[in-house]
């Protein structure tokens, strides 16, 4: 047995990695809690890959078969409904935790130099995760998702200049059709996963390179901070968190299985109450509230432009926040962070209450 272990160690050089992990230190202070969402995300992405691969064994991506195959999975396959619910609930959790992760790093100013690229890769990861959710929503090909996708792609299509191409690219034509489903399928199961894995690798390697960010208030007084070993201490925390989140996920999937709804029909009127996934509601609600014409702009174009600018702003934050960059307090950006957070909450609440 011992020999087998040695044989393996000698041939893989894995000892060096373990050694490295044992020596790696992680800062521990009163904000340590906010380091956890990142690792939980990695665990949940693992759940998505596994459940996604399993669903892929039965799912058939054409408009004649998509709905039927999902219905077959949920109705007839052992654990089918559970598996699909796991995948869907996990995606909800991923987005929720990604939001938490993003806003906690925003408010703790983790994007300070030299960690700008960590922040930027993170915002792109966020966009990728949202696109994952958006593309996955259509795959069961039900009525609600069809029109939500129609509206969503049209919103992307109202972007100035690139909108036209974006719409054609997403829909595979002027209107939603079977081609759209094929495209979304390709995006969801291979194109986005490849991009996600590459970006996540960059994100994690950069964090490894720079070490975890310590908030300025802690950094200024070394007494408030100690270091703990990554292995085993931090990894054990991660494992416990992972177990908790996974149990929560199983409970959700068991007791609140996701519904499949009615099959989509390209020649049926839009049903009342079409809604995108909850994490797009704040944008949806904003677009509803903007009047149809503002000066000589169409309201929706204005709305889309605001969100596009918002995304650019988010990416550029490390370069705009000059105070944090000099390790000074940056109340303005704290305010902006809370402002965005409150805006998202209020708009989402309005959207729910408005029903």
């Amino acid at each position, binding site marked *: 047995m011992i020999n087998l272990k040695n044989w393996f160690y000698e041939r893989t050089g894995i000892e060096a990695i373990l050694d490295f992990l044992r020596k790696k230190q992680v800062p521990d202070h009163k904000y340590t809690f906010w380091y956890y969402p990142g690792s939980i995300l990695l665990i949940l992405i693992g759940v998505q890959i596994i459940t996604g691969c399993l669903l892929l064994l039965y799912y058939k991506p054409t408009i004649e078969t998509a709905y039927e195959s999902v219905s077959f999975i949920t109705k007839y396959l052992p654990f089918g409904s559970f598996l699909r619910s796991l995948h869907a609930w996990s995606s909800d959790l991923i987005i929720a935790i990604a939001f938490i992760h993003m806003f906690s790093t925003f408010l703790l100013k983790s994007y300070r130099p030299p960690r700008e690229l960590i922040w930027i890769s993170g915002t792109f990861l966020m966009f990728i995760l949202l696109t994952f959710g958006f593309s996955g929503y259509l795959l069961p090909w039900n009525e609600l998702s069809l029109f939500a996708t129609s509206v969503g792609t*049209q919103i992307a299509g109202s972007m100035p200049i690139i909108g036209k191409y974006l719409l*054609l690219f997403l829909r595979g034509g002027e209107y939603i059709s079977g081609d759209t489903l094929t495209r979304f399928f390709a995006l969801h199961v291979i194109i986005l996963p490849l991009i996600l894995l590459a970006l996540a690798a960059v994100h994690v390697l950069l964090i490894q390179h720079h070490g975890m960010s310590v908030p300025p208030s802690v950094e200024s007084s070394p007494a408030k901070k100690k270091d703990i070993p990554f292995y085993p201490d931090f990894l054990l925390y991660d494992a416990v968190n992972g177990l908790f989140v996974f149990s929560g996920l199983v409970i959700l999937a068991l007791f609140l299985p996701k519904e499949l709804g009615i099959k989509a029909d390209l020649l049926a*009127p*839009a049903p009342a109450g*079409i809604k995108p996934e909850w994490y797009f509601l704040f944008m949806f609600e904003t677009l509803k509230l903007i*009047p*149809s014409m503002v000066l000589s702009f169409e309201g929706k174009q204005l709305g889309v432009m605001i969100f596009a600018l918002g995304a650019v702003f988010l990416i550029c934050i490390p370069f705009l926040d000059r105070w944090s960059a000099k390790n000074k307090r940056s109340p303005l950006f704290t305010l902006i962070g809370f402002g965005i957070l409150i805006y998202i909450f209020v708009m989402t609440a309005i959207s729910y209450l408005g029903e």
Partner: protein
Amino acid sequence: MKLKESLFTRRKFLNWSLTASLAALFGTAVGPVWRFVFPGEVGPEPTEVELKDFPELLPGTGKLFKFGRHPAIMIRTPDGKLKSFTAVCTHFECTVQYKKDTNQIWCACHNGFYDTNGKVVSGPPPRPLEEYDVAVEKDKIIVSRRGVPKGEKPKEKA
């Protein structure tokens, strides 16, 4: 005069040509990939469709049908007139439906209302619905876009 050294070394030349070749390779790939990804010309939308065996509509009802690649709606107003519009809402392109109780065309997505002339009555749609001409013949109904010269229309049978 003959220089003792070449101004352009072999190394430089090789570096340069390798970079240029790689750039050319990727450059030539962009066009084809772009054209492959964007479906591009799928042919113009037909300007006229013939509906055979279209069900008889009672006054105050509507029905969707396919006009080329997009949905369109046929309604019979309470006073018996047959009218047709695109069914694609001008707001975010949801498919509209006829609402009998108010005699309006309704988009459920964000509660957009149009009257039976396609004009926006309320809600977020920014523009009216395009109205089509309806011609009833013996065994078929011909629906055509307005303002398109007759004769040279690409036709589509439905």
